């Protein structure tokens, strides 16, 4: 595959560079490509020379970097779900007496479960990615993980804003007990929650069809993944 050339160690000279303005036909280009020598500036050492320990160390770091975000999301979700669930369990009788006092904890619990679900699925798809799989298959896995990341970090964040009221009230409740929630103006709190519910429903119904939603996902997925998805669609249709 690699034809050897005695001059291959020489870099491109300025004169040679000057003649680059004019491309050739495809067959000539192909022949030129296949005759390239393997050495390239920036990759001077043999690929096999790197020590195994260093390889493993760097690979571990890359893996950690990739999985860090969903792992942190899972932990936050777990803490939220744990706190919300514990609070409901500890004040079960009080919440039964005044159900309104349980809403912040329920929202925090549901938010935690949702975060764990989205992040857990991201981790699952990232672990499933097999670098030795076919390109479309591997990119499909990456696309699924990236799509979930978009949902959890961008979409869920914006729609979660409507439910922001639950967080502070819940924190106050943790310090002062469930009855503290009754101090908050009920209309204001219910209005926020209703707004959040409506936004969530709108996302569910129109999210995939809305141009802004498609643009958001396309921007986050990147060209390679969109291309992979388009290819997959084409292959399926073909």
């Amino acid at each position, binding site marked *: *595959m690699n*034809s050897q*050339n005695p*001059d*291959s160690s*020489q*870099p*491109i000279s*300025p004169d*040679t560079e000057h*003649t*680059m303005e*004019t*491309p*050739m*036909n*495809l067959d*000539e*280009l*192909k*022949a*030129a*490509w*296949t*005759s*390239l*020598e*393997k050495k*390239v*500036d*920036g*990759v001077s050492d*043999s*690929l*096999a020379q*790197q020590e*195994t320990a260093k*390889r*493993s160390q*760097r*690979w571990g770091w*890359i893996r950690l970097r990739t999985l860090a975000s969903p792992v942190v999301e899972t932990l936050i979700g777990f803490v939220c779900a744990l706190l919300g669930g514990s609070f409901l369990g500890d004040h079960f009788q009080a919440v039964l007496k005044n159900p309104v006092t349980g809403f912040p904890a329920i929202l925090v619990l549901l938010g935690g479960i949702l975060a764990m679900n989205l992040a857990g699925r991201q981790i699952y798809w990232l672990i499933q990615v*097999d*670098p*030795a*799989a*076919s*390109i*479309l298959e*591997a*990119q499909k896995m*990456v696309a699924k993980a990236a799509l979930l990341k978009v949902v959890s970090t961008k979409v869920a964040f914006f729609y979660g804003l409507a439910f922001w009221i639950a967080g502070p009230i819940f924190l106050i409740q943790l310090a002062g007990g469930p009855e503290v929630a009754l101090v908050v103006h009920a209309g204001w709190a219910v209005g926020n929650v209703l707004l959040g519910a409506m936004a969530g429903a709108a996302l569910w119904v129109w999210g995939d069809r809305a141009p802004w939603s498609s643009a958001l996902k396309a921007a986050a997925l*990147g*060209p*390679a993944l969109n*291309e*992979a998805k388009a*290819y997959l669609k084409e*292959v399926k249709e*073909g």
Partner: protein
Amino acid sequence: VEAVIDQKDNRQKTFEALLDQHEGIVFRVLLAYAASPEDREDLAQDIRLELWRAFPGYEPCRSFSTWMFRVALNTAISWSRKASLRKRWSAPWPKAEPFAAAAPDVVAAQALRQLVQDLGEIDRALVLLYLEDRPTAEIAEILGMTPQNTSVRLTRLKQSLRAKAQAQETPSDSPNQRSGGRP
């Protein structure tokens, strides 16, 4: 314990021998996906790591080069997808970048790189495999497409590349100039 260590050593030796033998695959993937020497070094390390990690799953009865192409291309595509690197990628390719190559053909190879850089990442993989003279069936296997679909896609890409190459050509070019000074 010694047997396990021996097995590990053997695996490493086999891996390094195969990597040395097929180093050109990584080299060409680097040329297609990474613009600067720094990027190439970075991507080369990522590819090495993924190859090493995936190596236990390699079945010796299958083609090593096909397996290596899959790993290298998947790594390169994922690498170039990263936002920060995409930014770097969008910068124009350094035209006078020196790299060692077969002297008479380096001009053509550079010209080809200029054409390939405009393609999408998966189209780039397809063109790369075509340039490597891989059979359509193998290209289809690496990409995960049907051979028919691969042929259609490849024909379109070749037409597109040809058109781009012709569009860049100037009327004053002589055949000698076109081939970088070759007779």
